[in-house]
């Protein structure tokens, strides 16, 4: 189980702040993030491409979308814009 937190305009636009998910890599999380956003906002413009462009941090440290995850990790997703 990992905790996923959204930041920046991704969070404001989707209304999703955080949720828990099962995944062993950041990439594997994307469909679940998308599902969570769609459940909250069915007409959200966010796509998997949007998520792939996000900056990623695991347990507070910036990493790449390829990063592996383990139980208890906290994943931050920043739309690229909030990275800057």
């Amino acid at each position, binding site marked *: 189980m990992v905790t996923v*937190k959204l*930041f*920046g*305009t991704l*969070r*404001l636009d989707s209304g999703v*702040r955080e949720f828990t998910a099962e995944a062993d890599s950041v990439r594997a999380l994307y469909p679940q993030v998308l599902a969570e956003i769609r459940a909250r906002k069915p007409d959200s413009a966010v796509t998997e491409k949007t998520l*792939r*462009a*996000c*900056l990623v*941090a695991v347990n*507070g*440290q*910036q990493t*790449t*979308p390829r990063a592996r995850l383990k139980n208890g990790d906290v994943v*931050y997703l*920043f739309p*690229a*814009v*909030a*990275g*800057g």
Partner: protein
Amino acid sequence: MTNYCGYMGKVLVLDLTTKKTENYIWTDLDREKYIGGKAMASKILYDNLTGSETPFGPENLIVIATGPLTGTGAPSSNRFDISSLSPLTGITSSSNCGGNFGHYLKKAGLDALIIRGACEELNWVEIDNGEFVFHDAADLQDLKCGETQDTLQKKLNEAHGRQIRCGMVCIGPAGENLVRYASVISGERAAGRAGMGAVFGSKKLKAITAAGDAVPTVFDKEGAAEHRKKWVNYIRSHPLTGDQLPKLGTAGLVSSMQVHGLLSTRNYAKGQFEEFEKVNGETLAEELNVANNGCLSCPIRCTRRVPVEGKTVKGPELETLGLLGGNIENADLEQICRWNYELDELGMDTISAAGTLAWAMEANEKGIWKSGLAFGEREKLSQVFDDIAHRRGIGAELAEGSRRLSKKYGGQDFAIQSKGMELAAYEPRRAVGQGLGYAVANRGGCHLNGGYLVVLEGLGLNIDGQTPRGKADLCMVMQDLMEAISCGGQCLFTSYGVVPGFMIRNPNGLLQRAVNAVVPFAGPAVRVYNKIPEVACFNIPLIPYPTELYYTTGMKMTLGQFTRAGERSYNVERAVNARFGVSAANDKLPKRLTDAPQDPNNPKTKVPLEQMKKTYYRARGWGKNGLPGEKKLRRLGIR
């Protein structure tokens, strides 16, 4: 007089001692060289200060200068600048403000106002279509900035028998009591840095109002309208200026700074604050922001409006969130909004107030100076700020700023200031180019005057923040460009648009990663441009400023000439500061940032300052003493 549009063609000297005005000669050649704003102010200070003046002496000058774009309707162009010999740093400094005073100063017929001398009693000055009237301000004494401005508006309306549309600058109790980092307030916006409010206070000048009917002309109205339309569309479509800043304000950077280890925490002992989510831009937007606001003519509208004491007031910027948040170990966002409001009302710079406070908390913890202030303290702070503004109890000492306090009590290694000015909330040990900028910045520890390299080192682009490679040259080119942008009268946030949107939208893309990897190696190429910017004998859409200047003023300027004007501005400021003792020895940071790694397991996480400084001086064509020589000043046409 001037042959250029946009300008009003008039600069006046107001002598507070004699209560008389006289014309100041400022030619079109000066306009071509210095554009306006802070460059103009620096040149005026350069021509009039000898190095023997003191910040609180009547011989000190205040220069309030607009840019040619101010008040012309160009996007985000309503800024003005206040420059003077700073009581915080002891050298000349400038403070930029988005309030409406600049707009109305031009309506009153002036491009700039130079103030010298001092009033005998507290006064306020009314400028009406170029005429000056002095008013006794005894009834305004000790009034906070909001009440001062409300009272002045009422007085003007009553005196003229109608609603007067005007711009104002004023000081609060902090300025009157010579707090070294007192600000000048215009509307709700502050010329916050460097203690310009205290210089007003030393001259017993409580406020200035400006009104009039003059309108700056525009050289090519159709061309300007077309250009501005395109530019505003670009600003609105850009991910930073069209999405992030309007939705999150500058506060939107807090989370990103946290991840990059750039968020000043516990007086810069750390770069990450565990409770950052309670004080970030997202939480501010979701829980407290009730509306967006903006300076006149700005399509970005980055200002937050938050509720405090039943009123809706200006919300905190990123720097205040960082410095009154993690840097003093406070995670109460509502408190930060309240303190931000209180500090603006008292007329005090939030950055220097918070930076000094953090030093005091650490000094107290270490037993160096027992002030009773501890990290995490919340209850007492409103009172402490009031005490600073009135120089009561420990407030009298805190009003001196962290450099003076640490000289007196010790703890200079953790007084987070440069040239006496407290640093903004960007912790530079993970963005060493920003560290270089803080150290060499003419006005002291200022993120913007330092070149704002952090925007390339994680908060925009994502180049390696730890490498010193290429940073000196990048620092110079950024400083010069920002300098020139500011001289025109425009907000520096428009410069985010210089980074193409696609670079920001997908930082994980192949091209973007390649650019991020390559930029630090571009130092030599940037150096060539820095040496001969005239190679850019054209203009490009990503940097629309010179084109806007042309449509508005009729002054032809290529990108290269524009950059050169920025360089000239930077050098003239340096040259006048040299008279007040600035040299390479003053371009420094506290040891905490240069000697102690942020991550004890990673020795690279500190600022390799001396190494970068040498390259920076070479890039600038300055001597080893960190100063432009006679030849350099002549080549730039300063001398």
